[in-house]
Every structure is written in C-alpha cells, then in structure tokens.
C-alpha cells in the first residue's frame, strides 16, 4: 500500500524558512501572502499487512520530531 505522511511544524513554532518564502513571494509581487509554513511529505510504500500502530510508531520514532512537528497519514 502507498501512504503519504505529511509533517508540519506545530503552531507556535517559529518557521524561519516559511518566513523567507513568504518574503520571496512578496518580492515577486504577490500581494496578500499572509503566512507561509514549510513542511515535509514522505511517500512510503509498505507491505499491505503493516499495522496502523507500526505506521504511527514510524512517524513518532523517526519521521517527525514531535517536540516541534505534527504529522498526519494519508492513504493513497
């Protein structure tokens, strides 16, 4: 099965890269870009019998740093 895992910064965590992208968009003349948050997407191909618990553990143990990041799992 194919999964997408989307990792985003938690609210309240400053995102300097998002800010730089926001400023770059403004510099290109795009008005009204009020905020940008950068994140990561992982596409995983897993054996069909992989349990939800194992997927959650992969996120918590490695793919996301839960001190600063949230994650969510999307099934293709």
């Amino acid at each position, binding site marked *: 099965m194919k999964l997408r895992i989307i990792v985003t910064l938690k609210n309240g965590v400053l995102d300097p890269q998002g800010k730089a992208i926001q400023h770059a968009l403004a510099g290109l003349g795009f008005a009204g870009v009020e905020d940008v948050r950068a994140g990561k997407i992982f596409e995983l191909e897993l054996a069909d019998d992989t349990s939800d618990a194992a997927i959650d553990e992969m996120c918590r143990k490695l793919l996301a*740093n839960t001190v600063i990041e949230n994650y969510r799992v999307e099934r293709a």
Partner: protein
Amino acid sequence: MKSAVIVFPGSNCDRDIATALEDVTGTAPQMVWHGETELPAGLGLIALPGGFSYGDYLRCGAIAARSPVVRAVVEAAERGVPVVGICNGFQILTETGLLPGALMRNAGLNFVCRDVSLTVDNSQSIFTSGYRSGETIIVPVAHHDGNYFADADTLDRIEGEGRVAFRYAEDVNGSARAIAGLLNKAGNVLGMMPHPERRIEAAHGGTDGRRLFEGLLEAVG
C-alpha cells in the same frame, strides 16, 4: 581520564575534539565508529562531535540519534557517564531525548561562523567548574541550525533547575532565552552549539574553551 569520540559519516570536528582531549587529559581518546554497538569500558567522557552526520538528512542529528552506537551512548548517559555533544552533537542529544527541545534553522537563515560572547550561567556542573558564574567567555560558533526551541513550560522548568550552562551574550541565532548550552537534569550530559574545542591554545585566539575540559578533568579525574 579515558574518553571516547563518536564518529559518524559526515562528522568533521571529531579530530578537533580528539586533539583537544589529548592535549588537556594527556590521553588520546578512542575513536568509536557509528556502527559499533558497544563502548570501551571505564570512560570518563563520551564526546559527540560537530559536523553534518548523515548529511543532515531528515533533520540535523535525526539519523545519528538512531544509530547503533548512540543507543549505547544513551545507556551510558543514563548510568551517569559524562557526555558532551557539541554543535551537531547537541542536535543529536536533543533528537535522542537526553536533552529537551530542538535546534531549528537560525532565525536569520544564515550559516553563522564567528566568535561569539557567552555568559556562563551555571558554574556548578562538572563541565563548567572551570568558569565563574556570570563570566563572559569567547567561543566560536559554526552552524546553520542552532536556534534552540522548547515550549514555555519546558523553558521555565530547565531554567528553574539551573540547567542552562551557557547563554549567548549577543544575538546569534534566535535561540529561546539565548540558550547556547544545556545540561540534563542529572548534570552529566551537556549539549552546546559553540565549539570549545576550537579555543584550546593561544594560537586559536584564546583558551576559553580549554577551561571546560580542564574543569571536567578535575571533576571526573
């Protein structure tokens, strides 16, 4: 004092810290490759060096924190063996959970490579007994991801427990509460972004870093 330096693919300050340790302690540290599962016995210090372990893939220090040897480092730290993580080593220590918080991209987005002023916040630890509390020292930094983050409750807790070893005395990277170096609760683990191993002899422009290792040698024996 017997010591070990952990070497990861992408470490680049491993020989600097080894030279510093040999100079101060008189004994060359053992270099331990990341794939090892055991550490030498009787260590007075384990050092996690600066660099770009595993190319900083995923997050700085993330892959190194899950490598075989770091499992042994975590076990040793939990038994009370002194562990210092410098720069990438600090990032690895937060990724293992031995130290709270995380190191994020510098607020100014630039790689910062220069001498900075630090204030010694706590001179009571085994790592900082060579300094006086409140003293200002000069130690170089060289990092892109040194912006310390933790939630407000965690920051209050670590400050209340006297766990901030060093603070930046100037704006460097946007770190919360200007934290540059942080101790674990037991006081045997120190993570810091600045590089004391690059301030060991007069030819380095100063010896403020040397005193960290001299203090540790005196404390650990």
